[in-house]
């Protein structure tokens, strides 16, 4: 007890002794705020579980997700096959466990590609304004003008189906909103006195944008990306469903619902199990995003 007290005292100190202590105290307050939101914590737990399941997939899955067993096809839920088996006798539970890796792979790659592109284009455009802003924003407009799924479809059709091409297609269609958000934030920040002040210290545009503007844009961007994760999962599943994402026999959840569609009347578990997995993970990201918004929103400074 006294040791917890001491930690808390150290974290909430009025006069931190190092930059690390100051940052830790700030993180602690944010975390405390976040933990107050039960639903967001619930979302975070599901996502943590997803990551653990993906990491330990070989130990969790009872069967090989790719091994077919025609004798055992279309078996209902049982102790041997928790979620039943599919039309070629593969264990659905094992396929969903291995499929979590593909899901994480897609959202991870999309976030890594789309977020930096969006924030760089947005902040540069917002900070410089004028001609640079016009050019960058018209390019953004062009990407925004394409219907998202159609552009992704066209891209996958041109590059050939496959999970990597689906990721590229989704990333290309999802950065423009991030650029817009980052630009909007930058425009409200750039005329602030603290930006004038750092300009008067002699800082160049690169230092101002990366060190002073980006940290203030990142929080609203993280919230937006987390909320978009659900959409990304659904788009990836949609591409899989249309046969343009992950290719059989890889255990991608969208592709699984697609093949399950043919058996929906008599063998409901084929489509219900991967469908539920998509639903639960999307919901978890939405809950987490809402919770993060309350903690990170720069307008509600704690």
């Amino acid at each position, binding site marked *: 007890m006294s040791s917890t007290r001491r930690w808390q005292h150290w974290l909430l100190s009025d006069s931190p002794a190092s930059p690390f202590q100051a940052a830790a105290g700030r993180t602690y307050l944010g975390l405390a705020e976040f933990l107050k939101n039960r639903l967001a914590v619930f979302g975070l737990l599901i996502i943590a579980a997803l990551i653990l399941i993906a990491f330990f997939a070989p130990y969790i899955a009872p069967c090989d997700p790719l091994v077919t067993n025609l004798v055992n096809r279309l078996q209902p839920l049982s102790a041997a096959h928790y979620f039943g088996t599919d039309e070629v006798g593969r264990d659905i539970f094992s396929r969903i466990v291995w499929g979590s890796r593909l899901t994480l792979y897609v959202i991870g790659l999309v976030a890594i590609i789309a977020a930096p592109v969006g924030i760089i284009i947005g902040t540069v455009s917002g900070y410089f304004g004028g001609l640079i802003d016009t050019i960058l924003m018209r390019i953004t407009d062009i990407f925004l003008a394409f219907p998202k799924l159609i552009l992704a479809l066209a891209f996958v059709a041109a590059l050939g189906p496959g999970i990597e091409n689906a990721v590229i297609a989704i990333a290309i269609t999802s950065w423009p909103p991030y650029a817009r958000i980052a630009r909007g934030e930058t425009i409200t920040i750039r005329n602030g006195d*603290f930006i004038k002040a750092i300009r008067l*210290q002699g800082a160049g545009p690169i230092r101002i944008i990366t*060190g002073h503007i980006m940290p203030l844009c990142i929080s609203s961007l993280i919230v937006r990306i987390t909320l978009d994760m659900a959409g990304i999962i659904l788009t990836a599943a949609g591409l899989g469903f249309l046969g343009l994402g992950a290719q059989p026999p890889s255990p991608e959840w969208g592709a699984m619902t697609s093949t399950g569609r043919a058996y929906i009347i008599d063998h409901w578990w084929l489509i219900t199990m991967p469908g539920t997995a998509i639903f639960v993970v999307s919901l978890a990201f939405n809950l987490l995003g809402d919770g993060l918004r309350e903690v990170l929103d*720069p307008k509600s400074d704690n």
Partner: protein
Amino acid sequence: MLQVDNLHVIFGHGLDLNHAVKNVSFTVGQGESFGLVGESGSGKSTVLNCIAGLINTWQGEIEIDGERLSHRRPKSFYRKVQMVFQDPYGSLHPRHTVDRTLKESVNIHHLGDANLRVVKVLGEVGLGPQFRFRYPHQLSGGQRQRVAIARALILEPEILLLDEPTSALDVSIQAEILNLLQDISKKRNLTSILVSHDLAVVSHMCDNILVMSQGATVEALSCDQLRSGDIKQRYTRQLLVASKGYDRAAIDQFQDY
């Protein structure tokens, strides 16, 4: 030290055209404290922003040490001229600690010894080491303004531009900050330009004063002239009455200029 000649500032075009500063000239000597006074919208802050290089639409001549300034300023300029802003709540980055705010300047100019410099300058503005790693939201208005002054001083400038440095603070803190600025200016032999709407503050701080109204010069005074009441323009006299506090009878007699 600093000379401003025939300074004009024009914002906007066509119907939106705003001639914000009209033909303003003044000279500030080495170590002198100069005051720019006027009501809101008189163009006094605009003049300061032109000198600092924050506004690029000016015409005329600005010289420092006989060197004429262009619209684009070299990095070395910022080691010579620094500014303190009006609003201490807006002039510090909300996500940077005091330490980071101050070190940023040292890093930009590759001065080295960042830790030593930060501790030294914080002591100089009367903030102890316990403030060093705080975020701005953990500081009061007066403490924030001290940090802003420390940030201006850490580059060891020769000229300090003060844009109403106390008008956002409460009255009890104003005097503290003004005294601090006066002590530092004396100790470092700084040349300073103070912009204010308050003639009382300016007469306390400055050796020479320029009164402005609607972008134009009204009159130039020395501090002694102001104290002895040797004022030629009625506008200046009215400002002086206004700075003495609220008086119903006096305000009823005010005229618009």
